């Protein structure tokens, strides 16, 4: 369960940093996945071209989204599926609710889907008295504990086996054990019962293929296959951008997605679903519904600065290398989308001002772009968001974030523009810095607005002479 609260970034980041269990989990995850993914990228037969080409494939799909979605819809209908279009989150939820109520659905099993988190589906179904079960093991653990995800692909990595053992004992009544295989077996058993009795299965869509008219889901656990094979109704939620034109392009993107998500050549289960079971088939759902969701995406599409973000396939590779994410964890972002991808997507979907800290709270080190299977330029888009926050932008309903900061920077600019004033101010600061507490030439406490620096580190004092002064003096000496 995730509530949208990006405005609590700093506060929640503090909690994450102070949590030694989380620190260990994040460290382990990044050490393991980051380098393994990079190694895979470098060992592909397509060579270094593979990622830029895949980016082009995605970009082409986004630039032709109207054509691709129409084609997909036609083909899915041709396979006997029912296609719905939802402009907003509410509409998407309504559609699903209606299907559930009309079919007297009592139990829903869900394969991992971020877009259903985005639209707040579970709560709405539960309000109707429908039991909803997350079936990805990590998601299931979080559903039992009532927490938000720490990672896109491994949502419960912040939970220790001990916590999970206690949780299962309490909620499932299973004997206490800290053995991960045994714990997994408990969940397997509990969820198998749900799979077998569920009358509706809900999945996301990793990447649809327009020309064949199929959605594709990827998992390692097999939970999505279970959710989409056993219940009599399958409802797939799809963010409208999760599509590619043809099979050959999809092949390379699915492989890259698997490398990015879990350092695998290909996900354990890749399923193409085109429609419900045919009349002469002995299993599979009797109804297949595809809900294609906009919910703010066409706005992103219309803005050339951010259109690139729609290329994202939510693999989570950027999380596995981000130094900031690696310290604060996913819950700090206050959104189903966390890490570098979340820092860009959350403001665009849920409001730039409320997510101001998400836009500003990164180092711009570029590790995300380097790790992204599609080389999406997240740092560039963070910069664009920051610029909107300083100037405001009516198109995106952004108010200038801080008058104080704007003043500071326009003052800085005036200073920077004139070396004489610049030097005078330096002289003044050089005098004043002697008033600051210092140890061995290092200032230990700086005043506002620099005080954050000395919260955890010292600062070397300004040099007695600037390099420019020294340069002039040597030059004069040489000349005389």
């Amino acid at each position, binding site marked *: 369960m995730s509530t949208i609260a990006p405005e609590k970034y*700093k506060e929640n*980041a*503090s909690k994450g*940093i102070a949590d030694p269990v989380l620190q260990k989990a994040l460290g382990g995850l990044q050490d393991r996945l980051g380098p393994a993914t990079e190694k895979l990228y470098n060992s592909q037969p397509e060579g270094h071209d593979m990622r830029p080409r895949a980016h082009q494939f995605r970009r082409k799909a986004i630039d032709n989204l109207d054509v691709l979605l129409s084609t997909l819809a036609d083909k899915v209908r041709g396979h006997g599926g029912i296609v719905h279009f939802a402009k907003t989150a509410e509409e998407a939820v309504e559609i699903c609710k209606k299907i559930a109520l009309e079919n007297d659905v009592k139990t829903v099993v869900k394969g991992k889907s971020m877009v259903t988190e985005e639209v707040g589906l579970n709560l709405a179904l539960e309000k109707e008295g429908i039991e909803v079960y997350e079936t990805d093991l990590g998601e299931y653990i979080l559903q039992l504990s009532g927490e938000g995800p720490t990672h896109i692909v491994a949502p419960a990595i912040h939970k220790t086996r001990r916590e999970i053992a206690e949780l299962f004992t309490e909620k499932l009544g299973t004997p206490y054990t800290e053995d991960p295989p045994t714990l997994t077996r408990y969940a397997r058993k509990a969820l198998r019962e749900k799979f077998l009795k569920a009358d509706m299965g809900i999945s996301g869509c990793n990447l649809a293929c327009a020309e064949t008219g199929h959605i594709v889901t990827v998992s390692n656990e097999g939970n999505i296959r279970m959710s989409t094979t056993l219940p009599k109704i399958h409802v797939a939620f799809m963010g409208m951008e999760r599509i590619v034109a043809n099979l050959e392009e999809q092949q390379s993107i699915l492989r890259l997605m698997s490398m990015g998500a879990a350092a695998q050549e290909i996900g354990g289960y890749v399923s193409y679903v085109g429609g419900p079971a045919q009349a002469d088939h002995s299993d599979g759902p009797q109804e297949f519904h595809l809900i294609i969701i906009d919910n703010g995406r066409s706005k992103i599409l219309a803005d050339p600065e951010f259109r690139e973000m729609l290329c994202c396939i939510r693999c989570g590779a950027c999380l596995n290398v981000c*130094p*900031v994410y*690696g*310290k*604060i964890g996913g819950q700090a972002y206050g959104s189903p989308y966390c890490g570098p991808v979340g820092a860009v997507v959350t403001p665009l979907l849920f409001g730039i001002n409320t997510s101001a800290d998400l*836009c*500003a*709270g*990164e*180092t*711009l*080190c*570029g*590790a995300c*772009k*380097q790790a992204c299977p599609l080389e999406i330029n997240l740092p*560039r888009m963070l*910069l664009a*968001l*920051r*610029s*909107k926050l*300083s*100037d405001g932008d009516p198109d995106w309903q952004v108010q200038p974030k801080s008058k104080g*900061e704007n003043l500071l*920077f*326009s003052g*800085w*600019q005036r200073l*920077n*523009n004139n*070396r004489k004033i610049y030097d005078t101010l*330096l002289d003044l600061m050089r005098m004043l810095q002697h008033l600051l507490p210092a*140890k*061995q030439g*290092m200032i230990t406490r700086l005043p506002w*607005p620099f*005080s*954050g*620096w000395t*919260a*955890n*580190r*010292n*600062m*070397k*004092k*300004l*040099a007695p*002479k*600037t*390099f*420019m002064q*020294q*340069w*002039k003096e040597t030059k004069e000496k040489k000349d005389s």
Partner: protein
Amino acid sequence: MNKPEKVTLFIQCLVDTVFPETGAAMVTVLERLGLKLDCPSNQTCCGQPAFNAGHQREARAAAVKFLDIFEDAEVIVCPSGSCVNMVRNHYLELFADDPKMLVRAQAVSMKIYEFTEFLVDVLGVESVGARFPHKVTYHASCHLNRFLGVDRQPRTLLAHIDDMTLIEMKDADTCCGFGGTFAVKYSEISGAVLEEKVQNIVDSGAEVVTGCDMGCLMNIQGMLSRKNIPIEVKHIAQLLAEK
């Protein structure tokens, strides 16, 4: 490019005001290689802090000033990867909608080099005949490494310093947590990232940590000093100037 007649120095503001010894070391190295140097003394900051904080107007003003001062240079050399990235890459974005300025920015973009990049790629120098009998570890700054693609160059130069032991730290290319105003505004997060960097430096067993950007090195030095860890911080120019 042939050996230039004259090299114009672009001194990162941090080097100018806090670490002039880094600039001096760069001068020593370049002069030893027989280069004529020039350093416009009215230069200030390239605008990167404003740009990274989203203040494009102010960054653009700084960029205009920079172009005014530097555009006549034959070649510009700077001891900071992130400043070169600002001028080489971000100036083009700042002036994307201003064709006249864009042409000027492009011209400067083509002739600005980071110090080690200049030595290795332009001058073809791998050894400057330096000697530094210490254990050193190298921090690969993000903008230098990822946005300029400069990593082999400093490592080549380091490998050719006599009597020096280069020890690779864990995650040498992971960010130190500096990020300009980020370090001040999100001090706790920045500090947490830096903490890990410092730990990796300490674990390497080096006596000196070096790099090509005083921004990162100032950040690292700040925490080493706060924790009373006796590891010295030196810009690569300082090592290359040692005999």
